[in-house]
């Protein structure tokens, strides 16, 4: 036990950003190139490991199969066959519940790509942009609309209201469809599909979104995550998740350090002092806030009730001095 405690104390001192960088890098390799290593985690992953990355992927994003299933003709959808959907969903949920939105902050390949772009921008000395609170409130709604459409359009196809070429509507406009396969030098999706009108519209929209993605990510950290329907979906089912972000409001001085470093501009992380469950819908559980918090125990990352990473004064000072590039002088 004391061994475990020691390990945790050491982990609390970790240079979180560096740790996270290498962790993300490893996950990226596994998910984007895992196929070449014989890795297959199935098609129900709660993260944007794109299914269009056909050969190289080490597992696929659940949204693709979900949209596909939603577009089943209604007779099939409302029959015993739907059990397949249920088991699929349960697999997806199981993956998710294990580590909550850590899928977003530490694993999602599209998130990692965004972080790399952010790092590039930072190297160039360009500062990031921020939404005003008003914009933020509006933009934060878009992901729910996308999530709803992602269900409704395929259901409409199954009902026969829409042409089947409207299938996989979200995948068609998801930037991962073009960006992730590109890492395997697969550019087949970087074209407008002129075969049918719906396909043309969707694929053109997809290109526009990718364009916006590249512009946006140069201005705003984690630009796409604000709109991500997966993020919305995961938040909706996050209640039973084993990994949780907890805040002890009594210990918080509202200094705003966590808010300052938050890629998602989540104000509540600094200002909410009553609700201990602090994971807001946009949260990606990158846990940068925990690393940036100087108040011992004010922010904690728990797994099944056991704290594995928490804010400590020593950790904060160590990390901030590292950031400045000046270590504490030795005495």
């Amino acid at each position: 036990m004391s061994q475990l405690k020691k390990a945790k104390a050491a982990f609390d001192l970790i240079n979180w950003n560096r740790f996270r960088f290498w962790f993300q890098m490893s996950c990226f390799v596994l998910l984007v190139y895992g196929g070449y290593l014989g890795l297959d985690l199935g098609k129900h992953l709660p993260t944007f490991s794109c299914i269009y990355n056909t050969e190289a992927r080490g597992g696929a994003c659940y949204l693709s199969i979900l949209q596909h299933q939603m577009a089943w003709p209604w007779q099939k959808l409302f029959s015993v066959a739907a059990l397949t959907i249920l088991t699929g969903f349960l697999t997806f949920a199981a993956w998710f519940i294990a580590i909550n939105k850590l899928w977003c902050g530490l694993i999602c390949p599209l998130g990692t790509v965004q972080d790399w772009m952010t790092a590039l921008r930072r190297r160039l000395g360009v500062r990031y942009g921020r939404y005003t609170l008003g914009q933020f409130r509006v933009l934060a709604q878009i992901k729910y609309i996308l999530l709803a459409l992602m269900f409704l359009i395929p259901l409409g196809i199954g009902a026969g209201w829409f042409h089947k070429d409207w299938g996989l509507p979200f995948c068609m406009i998801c930037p991962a469809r073009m960006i992730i396969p590109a890492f395997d030098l697969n550019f087949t999706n970087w074209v407008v599909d002129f075969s049918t009108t719906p396909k043309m519209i969707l694929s053109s929209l997809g290109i526009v979104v990718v364009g916006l993605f590249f512009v946006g990510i140069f201005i705003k950290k984690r630009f796409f995550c604000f709109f991500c329907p997966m993020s919305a979906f995961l938040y909706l089912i996050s209640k039973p998740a084993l990994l949780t972000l907890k805040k002890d409001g009594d210990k918080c001085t509202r200094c705003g350090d966590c808010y300052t470093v938050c890629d998602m501009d989540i104000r509540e992380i600094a200002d909410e002092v009553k609700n201990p469950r602090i994971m807001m819908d946009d949260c990606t559980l990158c846990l940068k806030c925990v690393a940036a918090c100087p108040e011992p125990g004010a922010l904690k990352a728990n797994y099944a009730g056991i704290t594995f990473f928490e804010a400590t004064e020593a950790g904060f000072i160590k990390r901030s001095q590292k950031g400045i590039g000046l270590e504490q002088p030795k005495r």
Partner: protein
Amino acid sequence: MNSPNAKTVALPYNRSRQAREAETMLDHLTDDFDDNPAAMAYFYDLFRRAYCKGESLEREGVRVGTTCIHAPEELIYAMGATPVRLCNGSYHYDQVGADFMPAKSCSLVKATLGMLSSENVIPKVGKLDLIVNPTTCDQKKKASAMMAGMGHQVYDLELPPAKESEQARVYWQRSVREFAQQLRSLTGKKLTRKNLMAAMARTGRAQAAFRTLHNFRRKSPSVVLGKDVFLITNAYFFDDIERWTEAVEKLNAELVQRDKDGFCAAQKKAPRILFTGSPPIFPNLKLPLLVEQSGGVVVADETCSANRMLYDMTAVDEWLVNDMVDSLADKYLKPCTCPIFTNNDDRIRRLLELAKSFAVDGVVYQAFAGCQVYEMEQRSVAEALNKEGIAMLYIETDYSPDDMGQLTTRIEAFLESLKSRKRKRA
């Protein structure tokens, strides 16, 4: 002053009223207590030299006076200038200020303006190139024009009246950026990533040292007395930051040893006091001194001459100038528990947390007569504390020493009641 007929009698500085005021306080701080930490000698000596002997603390380069904790010192240091906190605790200057200030204004503002209107001021920090006056309370706001009238160059750093809204945050960030611009035109230096990082590292190190000291005060029985900690944080107002940090680190090292040796700075049963409200500023350490002379020990504080000034540290996400400046702005606004802000639940939460984590027996709340915001907030703070079973003593006072007798009675009675309360619980 310059008229040829006027002859000033050269009174030796150390016989002046203000020097003797400082000396009396220092004598009490050192002589009324046994076993002061050896490392405190640096601070005792610093104050004796600066206040009693009138030695110069003049610095090279541009000097920027600040009238509140809200002026980001990192920006001032980054541009090669030196900040000096002007908030004054001298009864002598309080009297000087009373000559031209309304009778009901608070001692701190009166003393600060009294000092600024005088010649040969103590501590001798040299001619100020600029005074940054954050627009905090009404009295400080109006002091701005008065200071300008005395011939000082004053910059109003605009602080929002509320701190919780996002507008306030954005407004303040803009204020701080403009302040950086102002400093640039004053110093002719550009704010760069490098010089700001260096400045933040220096302040960060000082804060880390303060936090270590702060944490020692959790120990029971205490290893260090509150009067010493207030003196240390008061030195931060004008001392060289690096020298200050080293002195605090040295003290911390001594406290580690004291703790190992099982040393007690106060009696085991000494009531543990949390100090809040108007700031004790040297030489007006009247109240903390009385508490500790009467057998209590001040184990924590929530004042802008100590904890509020040094506790909260800055986190930065991207070490680019803009991001650093915004992060600094956040640090100087968001965690501030000054009662000037419309809504100040944070102060109550902070007090409750300090009371809990420092095993506090009672709270002493000082309000300078005339400081309306502290006076008004007293009620809600007392209610919140009493609800948690923590007794609070509210004291309205000023810099004059003439209520010492009455205050002693009240403080002793308070400590006696805390003791009997404690006995009853045990």
